[in-house]
């Protein structure tokens, strides 16, 4: 492919991807044209969003976003801490693995959303129950990835460690954990998207504030505009977070 042929092909692709964004907008217009009272046109939604940000009525959009964000923040970091610790314990100590891992495997298939009813009964409808649900959503992938990272470590590292005189503690801290770090990060990335899914689900079912709550309230009042705006914020934030995560990952874990 000569250079300019290549450039021309790339330009064509860019045009086509613009075209696809266009199709979404056209599709959106079609739906709103078909049932106007239910579905606002993209322009109306933008105006509504602008309106909500500039002079909010009642609970502002910002507060909803902040509520959801803090819940994810708290749950995600505690889940990461607990998940990595337990994942490493599974990988490193055979006794802990033999006794506790079967229990983890028993509870793992239950999706985090299925925990909502029982958690609400246990912790009521306060902040604790929502954070608990997000915690479960983030905790499981981190444990799974940390554990598999340690199991799949190349045995040559263990042999090399032994031969250059590393004792058990040094082997764990200096060799095994760094070697499984890429897997741990992969687990944290999945956990990030899972946490966002869980916080929305939890808020949709039991909350007074948060984007999930805003969506359900708007659903009941048939305010599609609000739903679309909240979805825009949800996907925007989680896309931004995973983008930042990838950048962070490239810096701290290039191997």
């Amino acid at each position, binding site marked *: 492919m000569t250079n300019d042929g290549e450039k021309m092909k790339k330009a064509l692709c860019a045009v086509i991807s613009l075209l696809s964004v266009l199709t979404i907008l056209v599709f959106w217009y079609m739906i709103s044209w078909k049932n106007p009272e239910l579905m606002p046109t993209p322009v109306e939604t933008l105006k509504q969003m602008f309106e909500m940000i500039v002079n909010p009525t009642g609970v502002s959009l910002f507060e909803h976003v902040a509520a959801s964000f803090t819940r994810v923040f708290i749950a995600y970091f505690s889940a990461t801490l607990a998940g990595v610790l337990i994942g490493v314990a599974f990988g490193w100590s055979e006794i802990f693995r033999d006794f506790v891992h079967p229990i983890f495997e028993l509870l793992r298939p239950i999706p985090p959303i299925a925990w909502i009813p029982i958690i609400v009964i246990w912790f009521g409808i306060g902040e604790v129950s929502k954070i608990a649900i997000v915690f479960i959503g983030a905790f499981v992938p981190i444990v799974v990835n940390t554990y598999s990272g340690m199991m799949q470590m190349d045995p*040559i*590292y263990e*042999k*090399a460690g*032994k*031969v*250059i*005189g*590393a*004792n058990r503690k*040094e082997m764990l801290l*200096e*060799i095994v954990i*760094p*070697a499984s*770090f890429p897997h741990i990060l992969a687990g944290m990335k999945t956990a990030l998207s899972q946490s966002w899914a869980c916080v929305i689900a939890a808020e949709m079912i039991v909350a007074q504030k948060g984007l999930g709550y805003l969506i359900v309230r708007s659903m009941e009042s048939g305010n599609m505009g609000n739903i679309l705006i909240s979805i825009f914020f949800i996907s925007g934030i989680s896309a931004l977070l995973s983008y930042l995560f990838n950048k962070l990952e490239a810096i701290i*874990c*290039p*191997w």
Partner: protein
Amino acid sequence: MSVVGDICVRNISKSFNNNGKKIEVLKDINFEIHKNEFLVLFGPGQCGKSVLMEIIANISEPDSGEIMCDGKKLREEDLCMVFQRYALFPWKTCLKNVEMPMKFKGVSKEKREEKAKEYLKLVELEGFENSYPRQISGGMKQRVAIARAYAKECDILLFDEPFGALDAQTRYSMEKELIKIWQSEKKTVVFITNNIEEAVYLADRIIILGGSPSSITEEFKIEIPRPRNRSDQAFLAIRKEIENRAVHSDIVSG
């Protein structure tokens, strides 16, 4: 703490059970390793050379027999090993990789950094202290691994087919370099290879492993003066002799 006398490997046997079936790999191996000698263990592909090496390095336990030195069991602090697949830690720079054995021995930070720089100079890698293993070539990675082995400052160095993954020309340069380092800083070396030319180029003495389960079949003393020329007649004569006696006898069709 240094190793005084020779090392003797006494009737080492090892077998694995591969889902029920017991496969004998090594059958009472006996040989001596003399002080500051460059000993090469030669054998065809899967004849258990690496298994024997890991037993010497006590990474794995033999079924029977032991490895004695100065009257007591050879200890891990007395030896270090270089692997075919380098085994450098990708998350550490070359300098930090070489520092690790000293760090595990509790050497202070400045001292080990300075010593590590010295060892990198020994393998002609000054200027690469802060680059990561992924940024350097296979030959250079192996030189860092050799520097790391020397950094442990033990008396015995074990090499498990270290140049197996390198192309022929890089292999020639690494062999020349290894002999240069070995002559400048005398250690007892046990070197595994399945390449006869490499064995004759490097060894003071060659021990041939063969048969299955493997046992010592031959032993050759190489008196050619160093640095050796791979095309001179004496070199080629020995190489031909080993080839006839050791290799063709039991070439296993792969």
